[in-house]
Structure formats: C-alpha cells, structure tokens
C-alpha cells in the first residue's frame, strides 16, 4: 500500500496527473486518482490539476470541497467509511459498530490517526441494505458486519494486511434476487410465497441476450421502436415517472450540435440497491437500453454516471462495454449499420446524493459541483453541454431494452393502466428475506410484506427518506403512480424499532446532502435536524413540534429541487401518522432552551478551575 507523501514535488505531482489523465481526463477521475495516491487533494494539487485541465482553480477547489469522497487533508492508508443508513448502517444491528471500530483502532471518528494508518468516518447509505451493516474500505464494500468481523478488521488494519489478502468472502456482494411464485399477470391480491422455481419477474428473468434488443429494433425500424416505447407507457423508474417515450421523442426533436444519452446510476436514496444488482447481473440490458435510446434520439455519445459507492463495479462494467464493442454492439457501425455509431463512457461520482437529480448529475458530468439547474430549460433540450440529452434511470433503460425486444403488448401485460409493467423493489430492514423483488405495478404493501417475511411491522418507508412513511392502517395501499410512486426503496421497520431515531437519521441525511444552493433547503434542513436532535434529547416542547411543521412545510413548498421538496417528508409524515413518537419525548413546560446551559459553562469551569454551586446552571 502506497505511503502518503507530504514531500511530494510539483514535478512528481505533474507527472502523476499527466499519467492519470491518460486513462480519463475527467476532473472527477483525476481527483480520485490523486486522492488514492496521496490520500488527499492538497492545495498544490488543486492548482496543478487546474493548470493541466485548463480549468479555473476555484472550479477544481469547489469540486474537491463538494464531494464527500475528496479530502483536503490526508486520510489514513486505510480509509474506512461505515454506512449510516438505517438498513446497512453501523447501528442497524443494534450495536454501534463505528464506536467499536474506533475504540479497537484507538481512532477518533472523522480524524486520521496520528500515524496515518487509518481514518474512520461515516457515510450516507452505500446500497448494501440487503447485507446488513456494511462499510467501504478504500472504496471496497465489506458487508454483513458484526462485532466479530469488526475486531478482525481492526487486526488486519493494525497489521497493515493488504486488502487483497483480506478474506475474499468479505468482499462478496450477493444479488439476493428473491423469486416469487404465483401468477405475475395478476396485479395483486393473490397470496404468493417465496420459492426457488418459477420466474422472478418481467425484467429479471434473465433470458436477455446481448444484441437481441438492437436486432429487434433494426427489424422494426427506429420510428417503430419509439412507437413501441411510447405505446408501452413506460414511465421513468427513478420515481418521478415521466413518460419515457415522450422524453425520447422530445429529445429526438430538439435541435442541437449533438445529442446525448445519460444513464443515472447514482442510486443514492437510502434503502435502494436495485441498480447495484442490475449493473452487476444485467449490465447488457442497461447498455442495450442506452443504445436503443441513442438510435432513437440520434446520439453518438452516452454516459453512465456511476455513484462513487459502486466504484467496485467499474471493472465489471468496463469488461461488459469492451465485450459489447467486440460484438459490434457499441462503437462505429453498430451491427453493421453505417450510420449507427455510439459509445458509452462511465463517469464515477464521489459521494453526493444530490447528483441523482438529473440536472445536478449533468453538472457533475461537466466537472462541477452537483447543483441542480434552473428549469426550464429541461435536459431534453438543454442537457449535457447544453445539448439535447436523455437522462434515464438504470431500470428504465433495462425496461426499454426489453420492450425493444418483446414489444409493448408484452410489457403492458402486467401492471395497471397508468403504471404499466413491473417495478423492481429493494426490500430491506426488519424482514426475513431482504433483497430484490420484482412485482407488477399495483402490488399492495401488505403483499410485499408477506413475501419478504416481515412480521409485527410498525411502519414502512416507501421510496426512501424522500418518499412516504406508511402506517399499518394503510398497508393496503398500492405501489404505482396512481397511489404510491416509488423509486423502489422499501424499508421495513418492526415494532422493536425506535421510529424517532429513524426520523432523526433521515433529517441528518438531508442536512448532510443538501447542496446548499437555495436558502430554504440549505438552512431549513439544518434547522430541522437541530430541532429533531433537541426533541430526541428530551428537550423539545410543543413549540418545537409546531416550528418543525412550519419549517418543514416551507422547505417542501419553496425549495429549488426535489431534495428540498422532499426533505421534510419523514417529519411531516410522522408528525401526522405517528405523533406519539414525538409527544412521548417532550419535556414539561412551554419552552426549553436551544442549548445546554450547564454545558455552556464547562469551558469556563475548566479555565477557572471552579466547580462550586454557582459554577453550574440547571
């Protein structure tokens, strides 16, 4: 493992940047290479990168400071990031594994140990929610953590054992695709149970042969293929549900110097991991969907924007891309068609939930902070480099590839009128069988709970923290655009869970992930976080609840983008549906101070060496 060097010369830095640039000149990639090699991105490195790429120093600096996985002070040779998600987080098993690891390694969370060996910190959901508590060590996921494994990790770090020599089994990430028996064409209502036979669903049945969709498209013609996509009534699988056919049509008709296809693989919503599985086991379908889209809109270049947490999937994805080029499914003259030229580049993010918002993603693709743009104009007319761009979710492209192959009638054979086809769910939390489930749209929450083996359920969070918190009285509600739209996160909270702790977790998540562009979200998410901490600490009153409701509604209605518009959902939902979780924590009286008065005297007590009665406040 390379030693961090604090005496690096500018020449060495320059050589390194030039070498890194041979692989990819994308700002995020060069910064990642520097972070890996030197364990931080120094001010000198920022200046040199700016000079190499011909960018303003301030742009490089602002990017380094924006993304969670870039640091301007050195991290440890082992940089360990534990997920803080409610499903794959360091507290999800009941014990505080972060504290345990810090204790074992005599490290302080957030700080690099004095000898530079290790740094330990927490990070937002890493998409391993079906694997229990998980972490990233130098970018590699280790799942199924428990106290024993934490102790062994500490030993391996302390002995500086190279990551390659750690138990291979630890790095294994399973697909956990759960197969449901029963008639998939029935929307819902029929009892079903898990079994190992039968199909797993419309898209996951895995008989997709690379190139099949493209051959079918050529046979049907491009117009015909767009018509199939439109007639399938496929809607975006990220959660917002815009018509895919319409999006492609608008982009196809938009004037521009070039058109672009972008696959949004920045799956950051806590509790979502379906894209991890699709990219791992259905990458051909993803790339094929993008290629079909390219043919329809006339794009020569595509990007797959992969979240930094999934960087470990990059070699696999590059292999699939290389194979597809060899097969004539990518590159020039695809399938021998003279004018059909298209290739895909993978750009890897660096820890920023906001980049899942399509215009923020485009900003990031262009090498800037992930700040959502003003809309209109929309990406279909002014996207990447201000050119017409389609941005679709991973699952949307998979569905599109299958529709190109099998047609719209096949797709519409399941689902409901306004939500055709199937939805792939990421089920996690308190259930017997967390994992990937594919259902026809219209399935009820109760059905999913039955299938995943969830008992005595207190609540379900549909669509992740930005979605909706559902109480048992509403478990008959149905997933679909008519009722409960979802990007696929399905988090189960059993009776044993403290719901307030979960709401606090979500509030911290949003405050951490707010990009800071607009006032309501930048300040409001922090105000909500502080209010919840006050209440959870037993220092809240009815006044604080009323304030949270007022601020929450303002953020929801007045924020710039979807992050702010949904950040208050967990609080507003739980205030309405689970008021008791707040009320039972309230202090007596009408008003409680916003800070700990006695704690505020501690520094003075230390400086003056006083501890008399007057040196304290109640």
């Amino acid at each position, binding site marked *: 493992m390379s030693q961090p060097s604090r005496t690096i010369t500018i020449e060495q830095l320059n050589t390194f940047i030039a070498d890194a640039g041979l692989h990819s000149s994308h700002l995020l990639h060069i910064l990642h290479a520097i972070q890996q090699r030197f364990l931080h991105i120094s001010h000198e490195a920022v200046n040199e990168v700016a000079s190499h790429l011909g960018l303003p120093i*301030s742009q490089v*600096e602002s990017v380094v400071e924006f993304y969670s996985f870039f640091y301007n002070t050195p991290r440890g040779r082992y940089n360990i990031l534990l997920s803080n998600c409610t499903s794959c987080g360091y507290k999800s098993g009941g014990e505080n594994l972060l504290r345990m690891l810090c204790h074992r390694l005599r490290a302080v969370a957030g700080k690099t140990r004095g000898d530079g060996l290790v740094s330990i910190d927490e990070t937002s959901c890493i998409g391993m929610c079906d694997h229990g508590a998980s972490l990233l060590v130098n970018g590699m996921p280790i799942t199924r953590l428990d106290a024993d494994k934490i102790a062994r990790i500490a030993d391996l770090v302390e002995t500086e054992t190279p990551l390659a020599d750690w138990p291979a089994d630890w790095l294994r990430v399973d697909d956990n695709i759960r197969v449901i028996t029963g008639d998939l064409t029935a929307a819902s209502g029929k009892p079903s149970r898990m079994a190992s036979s039968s199909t797993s669903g419309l898209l996951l049945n895995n008989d997709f042969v690379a190139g099949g969709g493209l051959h079918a498209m050529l046979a049907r013609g491009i117009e015909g293929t767009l018509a199939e996509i439109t007639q399938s009534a496929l809607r975006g699988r990220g959660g917002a549900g815009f018509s895919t056919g319409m999006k492609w049509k608008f982009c196809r008709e938009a004037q521009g110097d070039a058109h672009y296809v972008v696959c949004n693989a920045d799956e950051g919503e806590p509790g979502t991991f379906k894209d991890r599985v699709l990219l791992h086991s259905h990458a051909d379908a993803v790339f094929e969907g993008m290629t079909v889209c390219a043919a329809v809109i006339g794009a020569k270049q595509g990007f797959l924007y992969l979240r930094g947490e999934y960087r470990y999937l990059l070699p696999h994805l590059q292999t699939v891309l290389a194979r597809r080029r060899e097969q004539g499914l990518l590159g020039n003259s695809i399938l021998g068609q003279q004018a059909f030229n298209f290739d895909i580049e993978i750009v890897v993010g660096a820890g*920023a939930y906001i980049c899942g918002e399509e215009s923020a993603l485009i900003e990031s693709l262009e090498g800037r902070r992930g700040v959502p743009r*003003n809309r209109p104009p929309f990406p279909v007319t002014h996207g990447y480099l201000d050119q017409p761009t389609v941005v679709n979710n991973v699952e949307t492209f998979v569905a599109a590839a299958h529709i190109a192959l099998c047609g719209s009638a096949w797709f519409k054979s399941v689902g409901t009128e*306004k939500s055709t086809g199937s939805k792939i769910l990421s089920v996690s939390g308190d259930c017997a069988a967390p994992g990937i489930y594919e259902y026809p749209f219209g399935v009820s929450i109760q059905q999913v709970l039955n299938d995943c083996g969830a008992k005595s359920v207190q609540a379900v969070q549909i669509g992740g923290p930005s979605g909706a918190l559902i109480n048992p009285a509403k478990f008959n509600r149905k997933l679909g655009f008519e009722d409960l739209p979802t990007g696929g996160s399905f988090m189960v909270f059993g009776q044993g869970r403290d719901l307030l702790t979960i709401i606090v977790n979500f509030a911290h998540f949003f405050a951490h992930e707010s990009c800071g562009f*607009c006032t309501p979200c930048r*300040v409001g998410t922090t105000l909500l976080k502080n209010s919840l901490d006050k209440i959870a600490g037993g220092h809240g009153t009815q006044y604080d609840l009323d304030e949270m409701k007022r601020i929450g509604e*303002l953020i929801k209605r007045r924020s710039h983008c979807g992050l702010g518009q949904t950040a208050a959902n967990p609080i507003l939902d739980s205030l309405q549906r689970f008021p008791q979780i707040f009320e039972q924590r309230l202090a007596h009286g009408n008003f409680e101070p916003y800070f700990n008065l006695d704690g505020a005297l501690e520094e003075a007590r230390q400086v003056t060496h006083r501890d008399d009665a007057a040196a304290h406040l109640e």
Partner: protein
Amino acid sequence: MSAEANMTTTNTVTPNTINIDGQDIPFKNGQTIMDAALAAGVYIPHLCHKPGLTPHGSCKLCTVDIGSRSMSTSASDRRTQTKFSVDIDRRSVSACTTPAVAGQQISNDTPALNEVRKTITQMLFIEGNHLCPACEKTGNCTLQAVAYHLGMLDGHFPQFFPRREVDASHPTVMLDLDRCILCELCVRASREVDGKNVFAIAGRGINAHLIVNSPSGKLVDSDLETGDMAVHICPVGAILIKEHGYEVPIGRRTFDLHQVGEIGLEPVILAKARHTNE
C-alpha cells in the same frame, strides 16, 4: 382579480400579459416574471437577482405562487394526480427564473407569501453573523432593507454563529464571509461584466462558502480591481472597499432615504457603493 375569476377557465387571456395580484402586466417573449414585473413597476422582493446578470434563483425571496388558466393536466405532472383542490395546485416558483407565459395568474404581495419571505430572510440572518451595528454596510445593505420591507423584527431561529474567515489581503478590497449570503452576485458580475472569474462557491449544504480564484485562495493574488462590478454589487457587507468607512453617516444612507421596493433603485444602490475618489 377576484378569487372566483382565478378559478374560472372561461375567461379570455389577453395575449402576452400575465396577471400579478389582479393587475394585468404585459411581457415580451423571453422575459421572466421578474423582468415583466419590474418593467411594470411591480416590486417582487429579491436578493440574488440583478437586472443584466443571468438569473440565479437561489435566495428564493422572489417566491411567487402561480396558476394558469391553461394549466397542464398531463399525466406526468404528479400534482395533478393528487386529489387536492385548485388552491393546492398552484405552483411555487422563483419569479426571477420562471419565464412569463400568457395567462399566468400570479400571487405576489400577499400576507402568506410575505410571511414565507420573512422566514427565508430570517434564515439568511441566522446562518451568518449579521451584526448590523458593527457593519459598515448598514443602511446601504439590501438584506437589511428587504428585512425592513417584510417587517422582520428578529432572527426568530437560534443563531448558528458560524466561524468564517476574513480576507484582508487585498490592498483596497476586503472580504468578510460572516456576512456572505451566497447570492453569487459577485460570482456572476465578475464573469459576466468584469470578464474575470474572481469568485466561486465551494463546499456544500450549510458549509457552502465563497472562495477566491487564485493560487493562494487569497484576494490579493486574484486579478480583482477596485473598479470591478464584482466589488460593488455585494448586497451585504461581505465585500467592502477599504479606507472608505462611514463616509456617509448612518441616517443618510440609501435605505434611510429609500424603500427597497422603489422601482429603479438599482443605479442608486450601485452609485452609493462607489466612492468619489476611487
């Protein structure tokens, strides 16, 4: 415009007019709601907007509620799928970035919206260190003036008291980030008017902050000059010109003599920011 008229879909729409608080306002193609309003002498509170610079839409002071007689009923609009009444259907938008479209019914100067704006202004005050009595900009400060306009008496929320930097390295200009409200007027003025690129925003969330584009990160090593628009456009006291403190006494400053809602005040504000012997 009465509430009933708002709900009616049969009223004819005058071509190229929008309606703000019952008043028909003409607009030209390409104008935003803010452009049209200001041209017609209608004030919509704003901080990050300055005519002539690319609209930004970050401060959200110009939040207005908008409905339209030709409102979208496309199935993709999630709002239309909910079972709420017309009232809830009204969209909240930033007037400075939203194109004017014929027939828009816009609420602007209403008690509810001004309450929202007051809360947003309070957020801006408490996230920074806005100690007006100790600030040279007092009386010439647009943040303060907007707060006066909205009748803000206090910051309401607990103070964040962030520790932020002062950059006094430049011979004639100083930067006090305690007062920065992240409006990016200086960022845009430097790029779009001065033809430079002196400022940018770095970091994210509540830690977002203004940075200087220079090898050292210090103002002295940038190409900023006293005459730059970026120096004078700061609505608060984050960017100040040295050695010109309190030349105009408190009580005779811009917003001691003017209301922020007076239309056409921009040249006055900018002129006040310049000093005679610069």
